[in-house]
């Protein structure tokens, strides 16, 4: 496959970004993914944002969340139904 034929679209890159960050792509898929990033600043920035988000979210300590706030969140998730607002939302 030539470079031009094999170039991923921005939409495909967005769909594959999680798999890329989890190391779930084949080597050939990774290279095609990175070839796109090499010439697309927008997708490179998107990847960077995703990596930072995962990095920050991954460092949240559940113990640091206030017990009451945690209870309210769990209650809201349990009572949430499609098409309705969660109870206790602000």
């Amino acid at each position: 496959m030539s470079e031009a034929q094999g170039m991923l679209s921005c939409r495909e890159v967005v769909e594959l970004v999680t798999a890329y960050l989890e190391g779930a792509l084949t080597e050939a898929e990774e290279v095609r993914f990175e070839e796109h990033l090499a010439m697309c600043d927008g997708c490179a920035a998107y990847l960077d944002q995703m990596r930072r988000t995962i990095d920050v979210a991954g460092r949240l300590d559940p113990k640091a969340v206030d017990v009451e706030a945690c209870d309210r969140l769990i209650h809201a998730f349990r009572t949430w139904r499609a098409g309705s607002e969660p109870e206790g939302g602000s």
Partner: protein
Amino acid sequence: MAYAFTGPGAQRPFAGDRWPEPGTWTDRARASRVEHLPVWIAAELWVVELEGAVHDVGTQLRADHGRLVEQVDGWDGNAAAAFAEDCAARIRAFAARSGPNDAMAAYREDAASLGPADANVAGWVAAHAAAAVEGEDGAVRERSRQAAWLAERLELRADGRVTPRAPARR
């Protein structure tokens, strides 16, 4: 020996970190042969030494271990600007050969706005313009031409070394 384009300060493209200091080994190194360098153009170019199992994956070289050897000083803003302009001239030439069509008009517009920071895009657009005129083989030839341009301008060698410069006369 191979080469690797990096972001400023030896930032590894897409990895979110930097290469270690020159001479320090790192695992899972990625680099490129001269023939594929135009695909990976970025701010800095380094000579890289690879060790362990080394294999080609498309336009990349992947190795168990690698380290930066030396930065290729010739790759700077002036070289990037010259590369972008060279590619822009190629795009204009392909557009002239193809006659009027929308795709070529878009490529020609791209060529008019390319600057030093767009050297990577310039090479990509030139390859696509070549494909539009000469087919996929044309794109491969255009990328080879770009690689030869880089090799000549930067005095790169196929084995990854920069040609030693003659000592300056006093």
